[in-house]
């Protein structure tokens, strides 16, 4: 039964809700290590931003909340939300119970899950992690979904969930830069040999 629910949930996620502007994934011909590190620092700004890190909570199955009305520090998603092993709450309370196909218009209403909303895999642990830790995770095929960095960039361009970070609905600060700039930075970083900072 649990598996069935999971399947139903996945099947009912509407295909496209966010604007599907084309993301170009053209790596530069070359990039120095310094350029790579500079690109990484921007990537880290994105990955550590609440719009991204709040759902990359690693071994914890609890998404996080942050924003001006939640106090200075991010805090656990209210209502005792647990994503479970399924990472979409299929065991108890599916994300789709509240997260529908659209970003709510009323402030603090749930953001959409049009793009297959779920908690990131355990190994993609970004919340509260250092720049170096996230960097090493992202370049490690064992922990990035078995992808080359070019594939990571391709994945970002195609995966609609990521577009949400730059269109998060009213009252939420979008992730910095733009998705295209983020993809460009990933490509620069990759061509530069994926250098990671000391900390």
């Amino acid at each position, binding site marked *: 039964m649990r598996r069935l629910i999971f399947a139903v949930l996945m099947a009912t996620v509407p295909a496209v809700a966010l604007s599907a502007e084309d993301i170009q994934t053209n790596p530069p011909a070359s990039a120095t290590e310094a350029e790579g590190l500079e690109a990484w620092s921007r990537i880290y700004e994105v990955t550590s931003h609440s719009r991204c890190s709040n759902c990359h909570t690693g071994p914890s199955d609890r998404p996080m909340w942050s924003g001006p*009305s*939640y106090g200075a520090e991010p805090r656990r998603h*209210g*209502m*005792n939300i647990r994503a479970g092993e399924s990472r979409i709450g299929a065991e108890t309370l599916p994300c789709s119970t509240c997260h529908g196909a659209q970003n709510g218009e009323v*402030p*603090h209403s749930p953001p959409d899950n049009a793009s297959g909303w779920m908690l990131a895999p355990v190994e993609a642990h970004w919340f509260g992690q250092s720049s170096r830790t996230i960097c090493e995770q992202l370049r490690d095929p064992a922990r990035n979904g078995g992808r080359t960095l070019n594939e990571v960039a391709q994945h970002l361009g195609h995966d609609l969930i990521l577009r949400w970070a730059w269109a998060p609905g009213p009252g939420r600060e979008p992730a910095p830069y733009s998705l295209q700039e983020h993809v460009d930075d990933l490509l620069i970083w990759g061509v530069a040999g994926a250098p990671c900072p000391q900390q």
Partner: protein
Amino acid sequence: MGRIAKIARRTFLLGSVAVIGGVAFGYWKYKQPYGNPLDDRLTDGEASLTPYVKVASDGITIITPRAEMGQGVHTTLAAMVAEELDVELNAVKIEHGPASYAYYNEAVLEEAVPFLPTDHGMVAETMRGFTKVPAKFLALQITGGSSTTPDGFVKMRKAGAAARTVLVQAAAQKLGVSESNLKTENGHVIAPDGTKVAYTELATLAASIEPPADPDLQPQSEWRLLGKSQPRVDMVSKVTGTAPFGVDTQLDDMLYATVRVNPYLGAGVRSYDASETLGMRGVKKVVEVTNGLAVIATNTWYAMEGAKALEVEWKPAPYPLTTDEHFAQVAASFTDERQDSQNRNEGDVEPLLAGGNVTEIEYRAPYLAHATMEPMNATAWLRDGKLDIWAGNQNPTLARQFASNVTGIPAEEIEIHTPYLGGGFGRRGEMDYVQLAVEVAKGMEGTPVKTTWSREEDQCHGFYRPISIGRIKAVMEDGAPKAIDIQLAAPGAIIDAFSRQGLPAAGPDGSIPMAAWDQPYTFPNYRVTAYKVPTMLPVTFWRSVGGSQNAFFQESALDELAHAAGVDPIEMRLKSLTHGPSRKVIEAVVEMSNWGSAMPVGHGRGMAFCLAFGVPTAEVIEVANTEDGIKVTKAFAAVDVGVALDPGNIEAQVMGGLNYGLSAAILSQITLDNGEVEQTNFHNYDAMRMYQAPSIEVKILENAEKIRGIGEPGTPPAAPALANAIFAATGTRLREMPFSNFVDFA
């Protein structure tokens, strides 16, 4: 044809001209009662009695004229009547009935006199008796103050007994059998030969018989229904979605509205532009209402969308703009000029406080919203000089008065329908939402309009639990307080509410020292002084009123003093308590919680006691300090209600009241940002949820002198018991609510 007209056709009142086969019975103890509220609806004839019982050809109806807001009063009040009438609860209909002064609450002011609730001497009781006179004069059909049960306990049973008496007399006439040979059983009179006559068949005949003014009541030992847990009469409808709440009112050709009121409470509109709104789908009209605007549409959501699109310039806030300034105003109120009352001053605290070794502690409590699950709403239909209002409310006679003020229609001619309340907690004793709905209806005359507030409007336009500060000084001797001096400063909830309601609002405000000055402790030097802070945000009654903060102040302080002196906090309290029922509730939680037994590291237990609304209540809370923060694991409560009419319901109320107190203590505060309330919805005004709810064990005792209501007494001890438990578990002492501002909770 309307329901009332139908009742009028088939029902008539005792002592009045018969219509088609019905009769209403009632009991009234005063010589000149208010008119029978059902009279006008039935015939032009005079009626001599107040009806709580109607018997019509198609069945028996019991009138339970108090708001059913979750506390189970419809069931308990109906059981009082049914007990004496000799009917089963599931064999009668139960209705709230109309607004009427006849249904005034005579018990609600009883504890307003400056006598200790434990004082049952002649003077105190006489003074309490006198409160029935102003209570009748004010004629408030109010539900609040945990007073429904004591108010109804005698009069509702007498109403049932009087009705049964005349039904038996009618049967005696009809059957030609002596009354003394007749028995009753579940809505029937039974003759010695076994002949059964239904009450419904006897109604016409019974109508011609004068009911006894003061019928005898069944002794407690004979009770069939009272004293036993009854299935709630509203349960099946509430679990099947068929129970009518105010917000569920549906009328033919109805329109739907919402309001947008100045976020600076109490200030008005400077200018507005509704042109965008008026062009939106479904929007019919924009109406000016008190301090704001209303949008009327074909669907509530269209109205809410329209309200968002209104461009409004608001007048500025008439109060300080930040929470810090509000607290500063409270802190500045401990002055002679602002001293409001000093109901207790035993011994002489001054010389002791002037000596050494004085402990001095300050506690704080924030503004709180009631946050009923059902947002404020009311439906009003004004046409041809007539006005009907459907509103879940705690005071229908007051609702009528507010509606009269708006429309000029005499209050007595306005019909108030009171469906179920999706929570009240004091909020629905304020009539602003009725007033706004009537203003909307006035702007749409001829059409019924349901006005529903958004949660944001509801949160930001409350009448809040007063912000307050308690300062406690104490001197200890031999492990017990020798002197306790309690100073309490808060805006006055009673005066503030009464002044809005056109009621006498003079004299000291009893809400400020409530559940502090009147505690049964026997400290030899004991003084409680209340200081009234000028009103800033509007304030009102909030479940347990002054008890919700004062118990936290006093019971935390006693715990602190005990720990500092190295004595057990319960033993210390018992040394200063002679009131038997109070001692027994504390002894009960000691036993239930196995107080004093060892707990794992990081776990802790805290106890608090409070005598509020006449009910001595003791609670023990257990917490565990986990990786994720403090978790409330268990709670134990013992209450003494004098006579327990429905143990199952009392248990539910104590659990709910305790959790309501924990919820506020852990999570809730209303704060201001540049004059606007910051907590706009449940994302930042959260309340206790399933994962935070402890298991609760409740013990009900019956040693106290009087029967008492239990809607509120469970709340006051919860916050201090939790604070004391957290101290025991972690060593952290919390002196300000909400606690989540200072420690993490799991």
